[in-house]
């Protein structure tokens, strides 16, 4: 295991070859914003919030998809990055009907957190107000497309950790939708094991447990670390 030394926001840090900039940064106390990343499943680099500047590279790189290199000089919080991130969040808020005041995740939502963290105080573009369904066909859970940011955490955890691959996407662009199996109502899915992992990793109120009202939903993703540790190190520790 070779060790790589690099600079992140002026701070000398070390990581192991093959580790991502994102992980090394967080391990050394530099919080890079993110929405599609969740520890324990693969990364896709889709939300673009974790983009960083790397000296000597023209392009901004998704830190969750870029491995550390010796001598790298990384900047995670420049004015340019901050302004890009705010604009990306505005795009997200304008895309679907994220009405925090009437959401089960109000107060616990990662999208809400991001807006606060990045100082996004209003949306400068027009809201799109798409007409979207809420799938409550499952006995225990619900899927509210109005709240979905298409981060695909649910798709990945279902595929990679549960091994069911119930979730996937249909459509494209702004019309993309998370679907169960081949577009059946969730409650009729043949592959869903009702394990609830997707609900726990969902950053917003898109996936929720039934019976929760505004602000009552709590999500706990410590189980992911538990499973991943068990798989990789064969240690069943909480």
């Amino acid at each position, binding site marked *: 295991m070779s060790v790589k030394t690099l600079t992140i926001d002026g701070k000398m840090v070390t990581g192991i070859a093959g580790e991502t900039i994102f992980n090394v940064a967080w391990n050394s106390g530099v919080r890079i914003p993110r929405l599609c990343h969740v520890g324990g499943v693969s990364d896709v680099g889709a939300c673009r919030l974790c983009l960083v500047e790397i000296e000597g590279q023209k392009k901004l790189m998704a830190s969750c998809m870029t491995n550390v290199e010796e001598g790298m000089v990384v900047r995670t919080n420049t004015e340019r990055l901050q302004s890009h991130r705010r604009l990306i969040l505005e795009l997200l808020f304008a895309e679907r009907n994220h009405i925090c005041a009437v959401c089960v995740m109000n107060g616990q939502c990662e999208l809400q957190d991001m807006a606060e963290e990045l100082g996004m105080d209003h949306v400068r*573009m027009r809201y799109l107000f798409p007409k979207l369904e809420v799938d409550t066909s499952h006995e225990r859970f619900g899927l509210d497309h109005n709240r979905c940011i298409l981060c695909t955490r649910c798709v990945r955890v279902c595929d990679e950790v549960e091994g069911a691959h119930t979730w996937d996407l249909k459509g494209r662009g702004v019309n993309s939708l998370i679907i169960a199996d081949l577009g059946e109502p969730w409650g009729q899915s043949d592959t869903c094991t009702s394990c609830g992992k997707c609900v726990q990793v969902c950053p917003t109120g898109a996936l929720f447990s039934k019976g929760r009202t505004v602000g009552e939903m709590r999500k706990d993703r410590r189980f992911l670390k538990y499973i991943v540790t068990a798989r990789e190190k064969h240690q069943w520790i909480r």
Partner: protein
Amino acid sequence: MTIEELSDIQEQEQARQQKLANRIYCCTAAGCVSCGADRVRQSLHAEVKKAGLQEQVEVCGSGCMGLCSQGPLVRSAADDALYGHVSPEEAAALVSGNPVDRQLLAGKRIDTTAPFFALQHKIVLANSGVMDPEILNDYIAVGGYQALAHAVTELSPPEVIEEIKQSGLRGRGGAGYPTGLKWELVAKQSSQIKYVVCNADEGDPGAFMDRSVLEGDPHRVLEGMALAGYAVGAQQGYIYVRGEYGLAIQRLQTAIKQAERADLLGNRVLGTGFQFRVDLRIGAGAFVCGEETALIASIEGKRGQPRQRPPYPPESGLWERPTLINNVETFANIPPIIAKGGEWFASIGTAGSKGTKVFALAGKIVNTGLIEAPMGASLRTIIFDIGGGIPDGGRFKAAQTGGPSGGCIPEQFLDVPVDYESLAKIGSIMGSGGLIVMDESSDMVDVARFFMEFCMDESCGKCIPCRVGTVQMHDILARMTRGEGTPADLDMLEQLCTLLRETSLCGLGQTAPNPVLSTLRFFRHEYDAKLAASRGGAQ
């Protein structure tokens, strides 16, 4: 088939064709087929039979002969005459060698000394009008597969790559990456399994270069791919062709079968130890699958979405193996380069851009169709000399190159040489070769809106800037064209341009702002005029 047999077939077929009194080539590309070329061809066959000339006159198909606006096109080899707008009733006159009959067709004869023909330089399209794309022997007769034969017997893989490097050929898909370097990158990988992929997912609005090459000369593309396979050490090739190209798919299927049967592809290429197979993969209609990582995902059977590069496909591509991906036109350039040498190819074009480029001329231009011009020809030459200028006495306003990733070039740059560097300098790109000409009646804000609508519809939805940014940009542009835009809208539009360029995951999103940026750069007054005339809005 061995190499000796290949040469024998070439000689025999050439001799056979020379003995014919005439060979009549009827265009079978999609453009001419859609305006009735099939009926013309049937009629020609019937007339040959009626006249009892089956032994002397042969009627066959041909690839795109360029002047699509005058289809159906028919070429008579005996007198080297090209006829346009041919109707089935004129078949008898075409079959007959009688000069009086021919006189009936005088009005339909196209002057092949006109600038449209004289100023073109055909390498990729060299075989259009002289061979039938569905007959293997026709391709062999014009020297087909000789380059492959030469390479597998007389050249080592590094020598093939050296020849390509020397030629200065750059990728014809749009980005213009040096082909030889790409091949070398793949060749250097130590993996036992490698792939060669032909990107035939041509999707730019108004572009049909690759379709025409596939329809008109499919074996040339197969030969180019086989040469690539030999050079980089791959044994399997895939052609990823868009599902809308039915005719191209059919011709490719025919060509692959023919080539496999003749040992030009397969386990023993030309009787040597070199193995190379080609399979088709049909796209389901997503523009983004022309982006190489999305294309790879699609071939693998996954959702056609791009992923971050690096790793680049030459290191880790299809099924995580080293993969060479080139565009149709790039592969079509390979056989002549190997046959005639890299130096010959490098003698054509400009310092940084060698060879020729095929363009699909569309929009407000007299000669809509397919042309091939040497790199460095000016836009003026392409549009006014070859293209015949603007119809109905219209005035040129702008030319759009590079499709939704490209830009609009205004009148003051008409004399800029068309090559990779010069176009980039004026805010456009070479792209894959679509060239849309616009006259004074075009509203440039609406043009930008049109391309943004295309990008919005084609965004895969994976990354947020492209998925939602294109929608917001389109909404702003639509508001502006309706006269409802505000200065704040224009400001947001420019901010989104920067955002998409700098933060989108793949090329589609990164270049989606280009039509807006280039119209803002050269036609900002049109945006300003719309704002000034605007009714609603804040403040």
